């Protein structure tokens, strides 16, 4: 089962730590509470970044630090190779915020991580977090408040906005997973249903989807098949988007009647999910269920 739960003792490395994004986010993750034990960079002669030891190869970093999780901040063209390195080194949880991963590379990486029983979150994800504990990726503090709502999202920014508004209404998050907006990805909404069902801290679940693909439909089917007993809410972006055009995310493409909003809303509602038409309606609706009394 996919298990994204991390804590303050989860040992994390950053692949690509000497890059601009790697350096910045390694620091921000540490400041949030994440235990960053090392970094990987092919750049010769860098012993450490802000005191974090840097290794030439992922294998060396894992051997020296005992890391089990890795955040990959490398270019889209290098991502597949970096994931292969992480899997070969024995990493069990991989988070890849990089945008623009070629879809055939993602297909290969998904096959590899599944066969190796490794949890891969991404690509094109802002990352994941246990608010108040630790985060892997970019999620902004303003949106992260500890609480009982499980949150999964394709979009980064829309989830920031949702988390921020919910926090203002006294609703915090238990486990936040950005699955990313790509067509082929490491972890899909439906694959997290067993985890959220079993997670004691999660009392309800919010899924932030968007047009394109069939992940929302698959998620609805998983809720029904697995008799998911907690309240489930959804927000789906893109109901007024034109057909045949990719709306920013590679996965957000409606064509030939596939991936449209109405079908997603209908199957989610049939599975007992409350689908909100706006951020305001979402905040009010979830606030009524989980907010302070």
């Amino acid at each position, binding site marked *: 089962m996919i298990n994204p739960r991390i804590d303050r003792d989860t040992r994390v490395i950053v692949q690509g730590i000497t890059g601009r994004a790697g350096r910045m986010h390694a620091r*921000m993750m540490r400041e949030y509470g994440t235990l960053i034990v090392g970094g990987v960079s092919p750049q010769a002669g860098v012993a450490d970044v802000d005191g974090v030891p840097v290794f030439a190869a992922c294998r060396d970093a894992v051997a020296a630090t005992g890391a089990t999780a890795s955040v990959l901040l490398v270019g889209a*063209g290098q991502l597949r190779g970096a994931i292969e390195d992480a899997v070969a080194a024995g990493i069990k949880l991989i988070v890849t915020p990089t945008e*623009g*991963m*070629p*879809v*055939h590379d993602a*297909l*290969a990486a*998904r*096959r590899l991580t*599944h066969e190796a029983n490794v949890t891969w979150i991404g690509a094109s994800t*802002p990352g994941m977090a246990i608010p108040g504990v630790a985060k892997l990726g*970019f*999620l*902004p503090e*303003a*949106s992260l408040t500890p609480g009982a709502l499980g949150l999964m*999202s394709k*979009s*980064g*920014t*829309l*989830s*920031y*906005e949702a988390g*921020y508004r919910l926090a203002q209404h006294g609703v915090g998050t238990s486990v936040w997973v950005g699955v990313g*907006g790509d*067509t*082929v*990805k490491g972890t*899909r909404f439906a694959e997290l249903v067993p985890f959220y069902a079993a997670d004691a801290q999660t009392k309800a679940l919010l899924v*932030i989807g*968007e*047009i394109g*693909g069939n992940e929302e439909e*698959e998620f609805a089917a998983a809720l029904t098949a697995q008799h998911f007993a907690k309240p489930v809410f959804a*927000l789906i*972006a*893109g*109901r*007024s*988007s*034109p*057909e*045949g*055009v*990719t*709306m*920013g995310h*590679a996965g*957000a*493409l409606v*064509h*030939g*009647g596939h991936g449209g909003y109405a079908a997603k809303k209908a199957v989610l509602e049939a599975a007992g999910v409350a689908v909100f*038409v*706006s*951020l*305001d309606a979402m905040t009010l609706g979830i606030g009524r269920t989980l907010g302070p009394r």
Partner: protein
Amino acid sequence: MFLLEHDAKELLAANGVAVPAGTLIHDTEFDAAALPPGPWMIKAQIAAGGRGRAGLIRPATTGSELKSHLRAILGATHKGMTVRACRIESQVTGLEEAYLSFMLNPVAAGVRLTLAARGGVNIESLATTPGAIRGATVAPQLPALVAQAMILTAGLAPHLAQALHAAARELAGIFLTTELSLLEVNPLFVRPDGSWVAGDAKIVTDDNALFRQPWLVALLERRAAAYPEARRKQQHGCDYVVVDPNGEIGLLTTGAGLSMMLIDELRAAGLKPYNFLDVRTGGLRGDATRLVDVLGWIAAGSRVRVLLVNIFAGITDLGEFAQLLTEAFARTPQFKMPIVARLVGTRLEAAREFLATRNITVVTDLGAALVHVRRHLANT
């Protein structure tokens, strides 16, 4: 991106696949010598399904018939898209019509191969006939796909099995090497001798793989006007789509999901957004050029009367962003419309100070921003 049929067929032909002879026509005044042999099919080139049922694919046998159909189709709109060009191609008649497609299976992490001995426009209705449509997902590798095609064509009439197996081998190679997300050939015309012709082609390419797909890069350069979004993304590193040419509100936004949701909410509130934009504030790197470009595109909207800036900055320094935005406005003197900025994130006060120099009000609540937007629309 979703390739227009003409370009999809060009891609197939460039890889040695037989397609009906055809040419792209943009105007009713065209060079008749460029036409392939008649009788013809006139096919509207838009990125939407249901062209046939919408009357956007028509046969013609005489030159005058061809012209009158072209006049009817060019400029017609379907699902919000205007037909700017037609592919005129030689009709293929009297051949059997099969079906073959390759698509990504994101769950099984493989490629789904689907084929049917009887394809054509009614392929969907075959779904209820057991065995009529055959498919399976296999590893994304040529040998696996070819082997699967052999299994799926077993039991078909020999000429159909031969054609579908040969087509599967050729098209699987194209699917993998061109890194496609979808490749569908329907109808796939089959001759009695087992040879075949791609009667139609639906192709979705992977924009993220462009850096190693020179044929597609060349296509984008050649046909930039047909793929403005993909071209823009390639050149400018941001996503921009005009969602309503008559829109009144220009949007300067970051994040695909939040930008889509904002458009949904504006429409639901009876307002008319002009564009979708994921400007990617994280990618500006201290350079205002991308913002200058975006302001220029938005200013080109003939009915845009107000600009709404909506940035929820996770990581981005709002002070730095506001400074770049102020610089961009200074470099875009033709941009005179009122501006409403809704900003949330770090260094908001610095952003307020920068934007105050251009009399731009900054709010943190989206509802409040919309009140300002409505006021500006009422006043202009």
